[in-house]
Protein backbone atom coordinates (compact mmCIF):
# COMPACT_ATOMS: atom_id res chain seq x y z
CA UNK A 1 0.00 0.00 0.00
CA UNK A 2 1.32 3.42 -0.82
CA UNK A 3 -0.26 5.66 1.74
CA UNK A 4 -3.14 5.98 4.10
CA UNK A 5 -3.57 9.45 5.35
CA UNK A 6 -6.41 11.07 7.20
CA UNK A 7 -4.48 14.32 7.51
CA UNK A 8 -6.72 17.19 6.48
CA UNK A 9 -5.38 19.00 3.44
CA UNK A 10 -6.80 21.73 1.27
CA UNK A 11 -8.02 20.69 -2.16
CA UNK A 12 -5.32 22.92 -3.68
CA UNK A 13 -2.70 20.84 -1.80
CA UNK A 14 -4.26 17.58 -2.95
CA UNK A 15 -4.38 18.78 -6.57
CA UNK A 16 -0.75 19.86 -6.43
CA UNK A 17 0.46 16.63 -4.79
CA UNK A 18 -1.75 14.03 -6.50
CA UNK A 19 -2.75 15.72 -9.75
CA UNK A 20 -6.38 15.04 -8.93
CA UNK A 21 -8.88 15.41 -6.13
CA UNK A 22 -11.14 12.40 -5.73
CA UNK A 23 -13.77 12.71 -3.08
CA UNK A 24 -17.40 13.05 -2.12
CA UNK A 25 -19.61 15.96 -3.08
CA UNK A 26 -21.46 18.02 -0.54
CA UNK A 27 -24.52 20.15 -1.19
CA UNK A 28 -27.55 20.22 -3.46
CA UNK A 29 -26.50 22.77 -6.04
CA UNK A 30 -25.48 20.21 -8.67
CA UNK A 31 -28.58 18.06 -8.40
CA UNK A 32 -29.85 16.06 -10.22
CA UNK A 33 -26.35 15.19 -11.45
CA UNK A 34 -24.51 14.88 -8.15
CA UNK A 35 -26.09 13.88 -4.86
CA UNK A 36 -24.50 14.98 -1.62
CA UNK A 37 -22.25 12.42 0.10
CA UNK A 38 -23.36 9.68 -2.32
CA UNK A 39 -21.45 10.49 -5.49
CA UNK A 40 -17.72 10.87 -6.02
CA UNK A 41 -16.10 13.60 -8.09
CA UNK A 42 -12.74 13.61 -9.86
CA UNK A 43 -11.35 17.11 -10.23
CA UNK A 44 -8.11 17.90 -12.03
CA UNK A 45 -6.15 21.14 -11.85
CA UNK A 46 -7.17 23.82 -14.32
CA UNK A 47 -4.53 23.90 -17.05
CA UNK A 48 -6.33 26.01 -19.61
CA UNK A 49 -9.28 28.32 -19.87
CA UNK A 50 -12.54 26.54 -19.18
CA UNK A 51 -15.28 26.24 -21.78
CA UNK A 52 -19.07 26.40 -21.69
CA UNK A 53 -20.48 23.25 -19.98
CA UNK A 54 -17.28 22.59 -18.02
CA UNK A 55 -17.87 22.20 -14.30
CA UNK A 56 -15.49 24.43 -12.38
CA UNK A 57 -14.22 23.96 -8.86
CA UNK A 58 -13.61 27.37 -7.37
CA UNK A 59 -13.04 29.17 -4.13
CA UNK A 60 -15.75 31.38 -2.67
CA UNK A 61 -14.13 32.69 0.51
CA UNK A 62 -13.30 29.65 2.63
CA UNK A 63 -15.72 27.42 0.76
CA UNK A 64 -15.23 25.32 -2.34
CA UNK A 65 -17.96 25.46 -4.96
CA UNK A 66 -18.52 23.14 -7.90
CA UNK A 67 -20.73 24.77 -10.54
CA UNK A 68 -21.15 24.77 -14.30
CA UNK A 69 -19.65 27.33 -16.65
CA UNK A 70 -22.38 29.00 -18.67
CA UNK A 71 -20.13 31.41 -20.48
CA UNK A 72 -16.46 32.33 -20.38
CA UNK A 73 -16.12 36.12 -20.10
CA UNK A 74 -13.16 38.44 -19.93
CA UNK A 75 -11.29 37.75 -16.71
CA UNK A 76 -13.54 34.94 -15.59
CA UNK A 77 -16.75 33.05 -16.08
CA UNK A 78 -20.50 33.21 -15.66
CA UNK A 79 -21.27 30.16 -13.57
CA UNK A 80 -24.38 28.48 -12.18
CA UNK A 81 -25.12 25.23 -10.38
CA UNK A 82 -27.40 22.79 -12.21
CA UNK A 83 -29.92 23.15 -9.38
CA UNK A 84 -29.47 26.90 -8.86
CA UNK A 85 -31.53 29.82 -10.09
CA UNK A 86 -29.03 32.63 -10.06
CA UNK A 87 -25.80 33.22 -11.95
CA UNK A 88 -22.46 34.11 -10.47
CA UNK A 89 -19.51 35.94 -11.95
CA UNK A 90 -16.36 34.08 -10.91
CA UNK A 91 -12.89 35.51 -11.53
CA UNK A 92 -10.40 33.35 -13.40
CA UNK A 93 -8.01 33.18 -10.45
CA UNK A 94 -10.69 31.75 -8.14
CA UNK A 95 -11.05 28.65 -10.32
CA UNK A 96 -8.71 25.90 -9.18
CA UNK A 97 -9.92 22.85 -11.00
CA UNK A 98 -12.31 21.24 -13.43
CA UNK A 99 -14.52 18.17 -13.10
CA UNK A 100 -13.24 15.51 -15.48
CA UNK A 101 -15.18 12.47 -14.36
CA UNK A 102 -17.51 11.35 -11.60
CA UNK A 103 -19.19 8.33 -10.09
CA UNK A 104 -22.96 8.69 -10.00
CA UNK A 105 -24.80 5.96 -8.08
CA UNK A 106 -21.54 4.02 -8.45
CA UNK A 107 -21.46 4.39 -12.25
CA UNK A 108 -18.27 5.90 -13.69
CA UNK A 109 -19.02 8.77 -16.07
CA UNK A 110 -16.47 10.82 -18.03
CA UNK A 111 -17.28 14.45 -18.79
CA UNK A 112 -16.52 13.70 -22.43
CA UNK A 113 -19.36 11.17 -22.53
CA UNK A 114 -21.98 12.13 -25.16
CA UNK A 115 -24.94 11.37 -22.92
CA UNK A 116 -23.46 13.52 -20.20
CA UNK A 117 -22.87 16.40 -22.64
CA UNK A 118 -26.49 16.10 -23.82
CA UNK A 119 -27.60 16.31 -20.19
CA UNK A 120 -25.46 19.41 -19.56
CA UNK A 121 -26.81 21.16 -22.66
CA UNK A 122 -30.38 20.24 -21.74
CA UNK A 123 -29.90 21.54 -18.22
CA UNK A 124 -28.91 24.95 -19.56
CA UNK A 125 -31.56 25.03 -22.30
CA UNK A 126 -34.42 24.21 -19.91
CA UNK A 127 -33.31 26.76 -17.31
CA UNK A 128 -35.99 29.37 -18.05
CA UNK A 129 -38.87 26.94 -17.99
CA UNK A 130 -37.57 25.31 -14.79
CA UNK A 131 -37.16 28.73 -13.19
CA UNK A 132 -40.73 29.66 -14.21
CA UNK A 133 -42.12 26.59 -12.43
CA UNK A 134 -39.97 27.14 -9.36
CA UNK A 135 -41.27 30.72 -9.03
CA UNK A 136 -44.83 29.52 -9.68
CA UNK A 137 -44.51 26.84 -7.00
CA UNK A 138 -43.11 29.32 -4.52
CA UNK A 139 -45.95 31.82 -5.21
CA UNK A 140 -48.54 29.07 -4.93
CA UNK A 141 -47.08 27.99 -1.60
CA UNK A 142 -47.13 31.60 -0.33
CA UNK A 143 -50.74 32.01 -1.47
CA UNK A 144 -51.83 28.80 0.26
CA UNK A 145 -50.05 29.91 3.42
CA UNK A 146 -51.82 33.27 3.28
CA UNK A 147 -55.23 31.65 2.80
CA UNK A 148 -54.64 29.21 5.66
CA UNK A 149 -53.42 32.07 7.83
CA UNK A 150 -56.66 34.02 7.30
CA UNK A 151 -58.82 31.17 8.59
Amino acid sequence: MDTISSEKKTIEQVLAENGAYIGPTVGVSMLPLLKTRRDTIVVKPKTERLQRLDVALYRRGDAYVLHRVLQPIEGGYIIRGDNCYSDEKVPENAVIGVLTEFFRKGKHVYCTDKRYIRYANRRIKTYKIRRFFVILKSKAKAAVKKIIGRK
Partner: protein
Amino acid sequence: MKIKKGFVVRVVGGESVVVPVGELSKTFHGMINLNETGAFLWNFFTEEHTIDEGVAALCGEYEVDEERARVDVEKFAEIITQNGFIE
Protein backbone atom coordinates in the same frame (compact mmCIF):
# COMPACT_ATOMS: atom_id res chain seq x y z
CA MET B 1 -10.99 -7.89 11.13
CA LYS B 2 -13.48 -5.98 9.00
CA ILE B 3 -13.29 -2.57 7.36
CA LYS B 4 -15.94 -0.09 8.42
CA LYS B 5 -18.88 0.57 6.15
CA GLY B 6 -18.91 3.98 4.51
CA PHE B 7 -15.92 3.69 2.20
CA VAL B 8 -15.96 2.91 -1.51
CA VAL B 9 -13.07 2.04 -3.80
CA ARG B 10 -12.97 4.07 -7.02
CA VAL B 11 -10.59 3.23 -9.84
CA VAL B 12 -9.43 6.42 -11.54
CA GLY B 13 -6.76 6.31 -14.24
CA GLY B 14 -5.86 2.77 -13.20
CA GLU B 15 -5.26 3.82 -9.59
CA SER B 16 -7.47 2.63 -6.74
CA VAL B 17 -8.60 5.31 -4.35
CA VAL B 18 -10.78 4.86 -1.31
CA VAL B 19 -13.21 7.65 -0.60
CA PRO B 20 -15.74 8.06 2.17
CA VAL B 21 -19.45 8.25 1.45
CA GLY B 22 -22.48 9.06 3.56
CA GLU B 23 -22.07 9.98 7.21
CA LEU B 24 -18.41 8.97 7.25
CA SER B 25 -17.59 11.71 4.73
CA LYS B 26 -18.47 14.27 7.42
CA THR B 27 -15.61 13.15 9.61
CA PHE B 28 -13.06 11.64 7.24
CA HIS B 29 -11.56 14.03 4.72
CA GLY B 30 -8.55 12.13 3.44
CA MET B 31 -7.90 10.34 0.19
CA ILE B 32 -6.58 6.80 0.50
CA ASN B 33 -4.38 5.64 -2.36
CA LEU B 34 -3.99 1.90 -2.75
CA ASN B 35 -1.65 -0.13 -4.89
CA GLU B 36 -2.90 -3.34 -6.49
CA THR B 37 -2.27 -5.47 -3.41
CA GLY B 38 -3.75 -2.82 -1.17
CA ALA B 39 -6.91 -2.68 -3.30
CA PHE B 40 -7.21 -6.47 -3.17
CA LEU B 41 -6.82 -6.54 0.61
CA TRP B 42 -9.21 -3.61 1.07
CA ASN B 43 -11.92 -5.44 -0.86
CA PHE B 44 -11.15 -8.69 0.94
CA PHE B 45 -11.46 -7.12 4.38
CA THR B 46 -14.79 -5.45 3.66
CA GLU B 47 -16.03 -8.82 4.91
CA GLU B 48 -15.00 -10.23 8.29
CA HIS B 49 -11.74 -12.19 7.90
CA THR B 50 -8.71 -13.08 9.97
CA ILE B 51 -5.12 -12.13 9.15
CA ASP B 52 -4.43 -15.79 8.28
CA GLU B 53 -7.33 -15.79 5.81
CA GLY B 54 -5.94 -12.59 4.29
CA VAL B 55 -2.54 -14.24 3.85
CA ALA B 56 -4.13 -17.29 2.21
CA ALA B 57 -6.23 -15.09 -0.09
CA LEU B 58 -3.19 -13.04 -1.12
CA CYS B 59 -1.18 -16.22 -1.86
CA GLY B 60 -4.11 -17.52 -3.91
CA GLU B 61 -4.43 -14.33 -5.92
CA TYR B 62 -0.77 -13.50 -6.52
CA GLU B 63 2.42 -15.46 -6.99
CA VAL B 64 3.84 -14.63 -3.59
CA ASP B 65 5.29 -16.77 -0.83
CA GLU B 66 3.50 -16.97 2.50
CA GLU B 67 6.17 -15.10 4.42
CA ARG B 68 6.03 -12.09 2.09
CA ALA B 69 2.22 -12.19 2.01
CA ARG B 70 2.08 -12.17 5.80
CA VAL B 71 4.32 -9.11 5.96
CA ASP B 72 2.03 -7.29 3.51
CA VAL B 73 -1.19 -8.29 5.27
CA GLU B 74 0.16 -7.41 8.71
CA LYS B 75 1.39 -4.05 7.47
CA PHE B 76 -2.00 -3.40 5.85
CA ALA B 77 -3.79 -4.43 9.05
CA GLU B 78 -1.56 -2.17 11.13
CA ILE B 79 -2.21 0.87 8.94
CA ILE B 80 -5.96 0.45 8.77
CA THR B 81 -6.15 -0.21 12.50
CA GLN B 82 -4.04 2.87 13.34
CA ASN B 83 -6.26 5.02 11.15
CA GLY B 84 -9.48 3.70 12.66
CA PHE B 85 -10.78 2.12 9.48
CA ILE B 86 -11.84 -1.16 11.06
CA GLU B 87 -15.05 -1.93 12.92
